[in-house]
């Protein structure tokens, strides 16, 4: 039934958690509208046939409705409309109230493109990748004029207004690709301000995220330009930190001076270390790179030779980023860099 009516009414596929509920009300509303129009039409048609003019000088009685009839005329539409409202408003509140554990993505609209930024990762233009079955909240602002973020398949639309943040949320249920359209007129390119939501299976999404994080250093000058309003994830050492997490380095190496499976990275750069073979080595860029590519060549005394090689697993620039990160881990270093996270308080719809 749902599928039949959806196709009859040309509605797009239902790819978000609330799409089907919105459509159910849609069916109810459209069917009652058609029913009421038909009823009024049939009634008029009946009167038209029954009370057609029979003679030129025909007179008609003076008929006025009783109070009860008028009350019915008021009561029926009022009750029907309030019923629509009650169902619709309840649904709307659900539609605009994000659950507490959303994955947040920042959206910046400008003539005529959509830019997406993930707080802990990559930026993208016109393509929003999200995992299925996870509530996603979009915090949106515009750089120039008003735009409107519209994904027909999710039944989601929210104006994107310059000078303020608006939010919307959805939970995509089906992996696939869904069109993003701009619904608020914004000039010559309004109709081509289109993007795409790519909904991925959660594990595929994780893989993609890892891959992007690793590839960040490689893609500094690539197509994905960073968003202006998010601190770039880009200082080389910051990229190294992300790689150290994604590549699993920090499972064995600590950054706070404590001893673990491998030596700590804190204050490592420039330190003199005694090797298993008795040799003393000054830890410099060369040694670090060698240890990543061929870990067993020089083992620091007191540690087991357990580290796997990252030859062919990390690209040259990624190793450079890692090395830069290790160098930055000085206990007496002054911390510099951009502040973490957004500087405004995101709005919550609760």
């Amino acid at each position, binding site marked *: 039934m749902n599928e039949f009516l959806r196709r009859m*009414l*040309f*509605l*797009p596929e239902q790819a978000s958690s609330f799409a089907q509920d*919105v459509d159910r*009300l*849609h069916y109810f*509303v459209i069917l*009652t*509208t058609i029913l009421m*129009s038909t009823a*009024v*039409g049939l*009634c008029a048609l009946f*009167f*038209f046939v029954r*009370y*057609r003019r029979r003679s*030129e*000088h*025909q*007179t*008609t*009685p*003076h*008929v*006025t*409705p009783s109070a009860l009839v008028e009350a019915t*005329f*008021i009561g029926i*539409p*009022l009750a029907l409309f309030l019923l*629509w*409202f009650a*169902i*619709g408003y309840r649904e*709307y509140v659900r*539609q605009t109230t994000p659950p507490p554990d959303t994955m947040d993505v920042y959206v910046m609209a400008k003539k005529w493109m959509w830019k997406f930024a993930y707080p802990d990762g990559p930026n993208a233009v016109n393509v929003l990748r999200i995992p299925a079955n996870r509530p996603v909240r979009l915090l949106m602002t515009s750089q*120039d*004029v*008003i735009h*409107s973020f*519209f994904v*027909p398949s999710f*039944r989601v*639309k929210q*104006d994107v*207004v*310059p*000078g*303020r943040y*608006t939010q919307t949320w959805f939970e995509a249920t089906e992996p696939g690709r869904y069109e993003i*359209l701009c*619904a608020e*007129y914004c*000039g*010559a390119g*309004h*109709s081509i301000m*289109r993007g795409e939501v790519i909904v991925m299976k959660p594990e595929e999404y994780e893989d993609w995220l890892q891959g992007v994080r690793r590839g960040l250093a490689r893609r500094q000058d690539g197509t994905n330009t960073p968003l202006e309003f998010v601190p770039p994830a880009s200082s080389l050492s910051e990229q190294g930190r992300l790689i150290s997490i994604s590549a699993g380095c920090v499972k064995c190496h600590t950054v706070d001076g404590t001893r673990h499976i491998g030596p700590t990275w804190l204050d490592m750069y420039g330190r003199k270390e005694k090797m298993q073979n008795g040799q003393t080595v000054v830890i410099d860029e060369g040694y670090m790179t060698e240890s990543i590519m061929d870990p067993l060549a020089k083992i620091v005394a007191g540690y087991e030779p357990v580290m796997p090689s990252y030859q062919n697993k990390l690209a040259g620039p990624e190793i450079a980023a890692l090395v830069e990160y290790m160098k930055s881990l000085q206990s007496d270093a002054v911390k510099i860099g951009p502040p973490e996270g957004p500087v405004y308080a995101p709005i919550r719809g609760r």
Partner: protein
Amino acid sequence: MLRSADGNHTLGAGAGPAPTYLRDGTTVLSWLNTRDHKRVGVMFLISVVVFFFLGGSFAMALRLKLLQPGPFLFDALTYNRLFTLHGIVMIFFFMIPAIPSAFGNFLIPLMIGARDVAFPRLNLFSFYVYLTGAAIALWGMIHGGADTGWTFYTPYSSTTSTQVFPIILGLFVIGFSSILTGINFIVTVHTLRAPGLTWMRLPLFVWATYATSIIQVLATPVLGLALAVVGVENVMGFGLFDPARGGDPLLFQHLFWFYSHPAVYIMVLPAMGVISEAICTFARKNPFGYKAIAMSSLGIAFVGFFAWGHHMFVTGQSGLTNGIFAVISMLVGVFTAIKVFNWVGTLYRGAILFTTPFLYICGFLFFLVFGGMTGIALATVSLDVHWHDGYFVVAHFHFIMVGAVIMAFLAGLHYWFPKMFGRTYHEGWGLVAATLIILGFNATFIPQFLLGNYGMPRRYYQYPERFQALNVASTAGASLLAFGLIIIVIYLTLALRWGKRCEQNPWGSKGFEWMTPSPPPTHNFDEIPTITQEPHDYRTHAPSGVFHAR
């Protein structure tokens, strides 16, 4: 006031039957310098029809472009200018003055038994203000036009380089015409009613126009103010609405819709008034629920002022605000439903005559019910999210504005054509054109409802290919609609010159406007009538008409 205006035109008493208003001075100057409400009404009628065809040709250009999903015929900027001009011309130059300024001017004094409106000079002035505003805006259109949409949303309109300023200035000026006409009608209805014409005997068209006038007087200044600021902002970089200069873009939307939502009722209420009159005549029946129809006009005028927020459901407005505006919008729907039920009730135990105007009345009822209920559906907040700024909205308001208002305009035009010009038109062609228009109209806008469901946003120059089939269907329907309208222009123009002359009351109506000869003499009444009954009381005597029962 009344006497002096009267004195300008009346020939010496007792010199035979007074000439009709059409024959009382036939020079161009005698028209341009007239104080006669009927002549002002006719001049308004001609102007709005010209603008209707101008706006319609813009619409046809848009529909032709939309045959193809990609770039076609002209570029995106031209397309954006065209839909802006289509909206501005249709709403401000045609729809708002169409029924009140043309039919209202002609009929209100006749219906209330007065010799003219309260301020005949102001009435003529209002016409020239209208022409001036239109001329300024046309100048702007020729010199580049605007590409903001008729809604002028900031900050787009504050920053666009197209000719926003002259167009806004034109609309600002035209607003005064609307206000002046509104004041004139309010005063006329209050002060110039014939003896015995109590408020509860007032024809329903007068009630509807009276309610409209209140909206015109109260709401138009707000639009004038908001547009003036946009104009100043665009030219001088004032910063009230543009956030880049410290302004608030949503403030503009609040001000704009505070006028433009009631403006919908400025267009629709007089249309409802036309239907209330015509349906009584063709059903030969007193209005079922006179008080309900009259009071719901005032109700719509009042409640309509507090429903504007439903245009802003997805702007980020708070959920509570949205809920309040949604409920208020539903009330407007209830008032409209009362009218619809009472019109259908009027047919009950009537003596219905099927004519061209009656066919338009049927079309009107269907479009108003379907268009109105889709409006309530749009006010149902969760559904609006998907439909907002999409083709569903476009289809909905065209159902109301083209469907209902044009149907009523055409119904009124055919119903009162004998009153205005003393001649009848070709009934057969009338029915053909009406059928074409109603069918063409459905074929144009029902696909647009479906396009809206499908997800096509409005104001799209290019669109994804899956929308093409429905767009082609819509364009085909629009061609049919245009064809029907052209037929009307032809046979009505011919009827002006060669139409069969008709008697005073060809429909056998008991509406008060038929108390005078058709066309009326300049001073309307030789003797101011005394009203002794309600309008459309067909209990005692049904006057004959040239259109016989079939």
